[in-house]
């Protein structure tokens, strides 16, 4: 089962590291990372494998969102199917 993690906010040192540490703690494997800076905002997209996630996915999504708030970033995790449904026939 795959999910997409998106991180948007002011660029600074350690964003990727910090998110990856959290994901690793719940046994979530990072499959792909892309990042860019759009209109001054750091925008990162990660494809992750959540099949082995050690907590319910809803909880991981909540934890990442809280973490984002602490770091003044928007961090969200969403199952990949929502994007597939909307953008692929």
């Amino acid at each position, binding site marked *: 089962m795959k*999910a*997409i993690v*998106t991180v948007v906010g002011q660029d600074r040192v350690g964003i990727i590291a910090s998110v990856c540490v959290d994901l690793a703690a719940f046994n979530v494997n990072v499959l*792909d990372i*892309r990042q*860019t800076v759009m209109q001054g905002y750091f*925008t990162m*997209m990660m*494809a992750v494998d959540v099949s082995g996630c050690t907590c*319910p*996915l*809803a*909880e991981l*999504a*909540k934890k990442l969102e809280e973490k984002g708030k602490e770091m003044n970033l928007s961090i*969200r*995790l*969403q*199952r*990949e*199917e*929502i*994007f*597939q*449904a*909307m*953008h692929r026939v």
Partner: protein
Amino acid sequence: MLDFKDILATQDMIDKRHLDIRTITMGISLLDCTHEDVNVCADKIYDKITRCAKDLVKVGQDIEWEFGIPIVNKRISVTPIALVGNSCKTDSYVPLAIAMDKAAKECGVNFIGGFSALVQKGCTKGDWILMDSIPEAMRVTDCVCASVNVGSTRAGINMDAVAKMGQIIKKTAEITADNDGLGCAKLVVFSNAVEDNPFMAGAFHGVGEPECVLNVGVSGPGVVYHALKGVKGQPFDVVAETIKKTAFRVTRMGQMVGVEASKRLNVPFGIVDLSLAPTPAVGDSVARILEEMGLEVCGTHGTTAALALLNDAVKKGGVMASNHVGGLSGAFIPVSEDEGMIAAAESGVLALDKLEAMTCVCSVGLDMIAVPGDTSAATISAIIADEAAIGMVNSKTTAVRIIPAPNKVVGDRVEMGGLLGSAPVMPVHPESSEDFIARGGRIPAPLQSLKN
């Protein structure tokens, strides 16, 4: 891997354009809850609803988090209570409404529909008892929604029931006068009601439906409005195409969520209702879509044509995105629940007569309309009869959800709160329809050929 652009576009729709799943509604059959004793029947209703729907809200919330898409409402619809209560030896079904209300609260849903009767051709004893129970049921419950189907293309219009419902609506408004007649916001009178509608207040679980089923209602007026801003001044072909593409995306999401939820709840997936359902929030309005097409204010000349295009394009776009489409599917035009409609009605441009014309080309009908408190029962019945006739002749669902706001006059405002919004009190024709309604009987079913 997915494109950045697609992912950010989806998130933008959710964050800024009010994209959401408007409702997941569990339909539950109560046909096995009948009993001679109304209190035993009420207990059976409570037990069955709480058993079937105990995980509905939890599953909905989990899906919201996992997919990052809001599911605004989790709701329940049940078998029309007039059928369930028919074998009770009682003269009031209010205890059954109370059981529904208690069960809805226990399950954590915000509305439960199905305090209903289907009387298009005639009324059983149970149907009369149900209609008589509506005012008190609306007063003593918070979550229960009532509906009565008074006409259909095959059966014609039951004018005795139309006359009755005018009086019931008046009584419901009076008995809930402390809340501006809020009870009427939970009461719909239908023609050609559908059995799998997930939207309130008109949802009920039809007798042709399975034991338990999950239906989904999608929304997204804000997304359509935003998409149309990108094609300013272009021909209607482009407008229709843009709406179709947007509706397709929104519906695909609804289909996915519906299938996922039904899998988790272990109940069959029913239908996706492809509706543009507005909310009072700015940027989530159907009226503003019509205005974006080039109308100065919704309600002016051209509004009906704009709405016809919108309604048709939504269906065309959505129908391929889902394997089962049903419910009401189309654009809703509830006045109090749509920021643009409220503004248009307050400015006097959008009048009741224009709204009636608009209901010929879109889903549902005269919805969430406040009229002066001194409007007679006969006038309300006549408004219902007009809408029912539009539905009957055009083989479509129409409905009336009207609030004769106690002690209010034209220009006042009725505050319903929350998703129900607020409605300016609109004028009705003062000339009497009393003798018309007093006739009773049935309007025969219309001819289905020689169409002109």
